């Protein structure tokens, strides 16, 4: 049985794919940024906080990492609505994504923070730095540099995982693909194109994170060595 591939829809519909990509970028960049802040905060609290704080964050991390993102999204979108809090699909998506990436970031940053040499902390202490100053100036940036590959991989994964937000009709690339394929009946071709677009986005994101790394880690840029 032969099948004739038909990509003719592209001629007319290609702007929609680009628009979808742009929407995905907006959605995920916001989620990644907020999720990173949340994750770093939780990691700091987890390492330096008291017993109760540590346990609460531990529970948060385990709950998120052991349940599917799709279910988390349903809980935020449908669940909260049934409790009276009706949020838009985009906002629900962002909330779910932020909570999700926050949990993974917590673990990654925690590993980075805990790998700070004890002698570094001692030196900072002996210079009179407060704990907060030590965390901000001495611990965080080198920790982030050490775990940067793991961190950026996780963020790229999040961008790809954002495709499931199409299930609550959030406006992003996969949702647009769903619409197009139902219009054109060229399902396979449409998703093939979408796959290519996501691949391009993956490369774009990886390049973006590389760039950010160059900007943030000045010493590495100048000397070319890992910390």
């Amino acid at each position, binding site marked *: 049985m032969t099948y004739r591939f038909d990509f003719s829809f592209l001629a007319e519909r290609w702007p929609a794919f680009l628009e979808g990509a742009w929407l995905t970028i907006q959605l995920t960049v916001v989620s990644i940024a907020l999720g990173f802040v949340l994750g770093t905060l939780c990691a700091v609290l987890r390492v330096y906080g008291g017993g109760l704080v540590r346990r609460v964050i531990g529970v948060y991390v385990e709950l998120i990492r052991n349940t599917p993102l799709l279910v988390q999204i349903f*809980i935020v979108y449908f669940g909260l609505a049934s409790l009276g809090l009706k949020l838009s699909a985009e906002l629900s998506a962002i909330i779910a994504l932020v909570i999700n990436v926050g949990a993974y970031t917590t673990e990654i940053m925690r590993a980075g923070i805990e790998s700070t040499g004890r002698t570094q902390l001692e030196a900072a202490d002996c210079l009179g730095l407060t704990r907060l100053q030590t965390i901000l100036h001495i611990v965080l940036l080198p920790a982030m540099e050490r775990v940067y590959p793991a961190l950026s991989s996780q963020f790229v994964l999040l961008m790809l995982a954002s495709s499931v937000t199409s299930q609550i009709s959030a406006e992003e690339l996969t949702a647009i693909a769903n619409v197009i394929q139902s219009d054109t009946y060229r399902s396979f071709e449409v998703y093939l194109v979408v796959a290519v677009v996501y691949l391009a986005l993956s490369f774009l994101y990886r390049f973006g994170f590389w760039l950010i790394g160059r900007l943030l880690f000045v010493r590495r840029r100048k000397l070319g060595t890992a910390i």
Partner: protein
Amino acid sequence: MNQFTSVHVIYLLEAARWTLLLSLIALAGGGVLGLALALGRVSRLRILRGLAIAYIQIVQGTPLLVLLFLSYFGLSLAGYRLDPLVAAGLSLTFYVGAFLGEIWRGCIEAVPRTQWEASDCLGLNRFQQYTHVILPQAVRIATAPTVGFMVQVVKNTSLASIIGFVELTRAGQIVNNSTFQPFLVFLIVAAIYFAICYPLSVASRVLERKLHVAR
């Protein structure tokens, strides 16, 4: 609107069995593919390496959901009827294979160079080196991360709901459509996933400590 009762909970638990089945299929298929890819990645033949790298890069750069759709619609193009289980199993196999391939490649490469040299000096050929010296050690290194990755596999099966396969998440949607209590229903769904995944996560951590892979 129906009341949410224990009947629904049982229905969810029964659907969870399909989640487990799909996970096992994905692991089995993905495992075979992953092994092939890992060996391809470390092969001395440039073309094998290139193919393996290309496959892994492409699959890892594509959302699982899109792979799922491709498998689902691709099946019908190939002349088969649309079967959600087959489509889900296929796409998960492709997906899991890529990730396991990467993980296992890392484990093979983590076996010290000196092991290759020693076995080579003893006169073992490449195949013997692999089967008797390298892979056994790589398996030991791979145990913890593989168990950890199983958590991802179980979670990923939730996407099969989107193409209509009735596993735990889809069952949750069905129950919700009947009882209209999404918060309660999906919380229980999450709890069941947690009950499956958390022990695996803990096991992975315990294994990592016990096998204490030197870094």
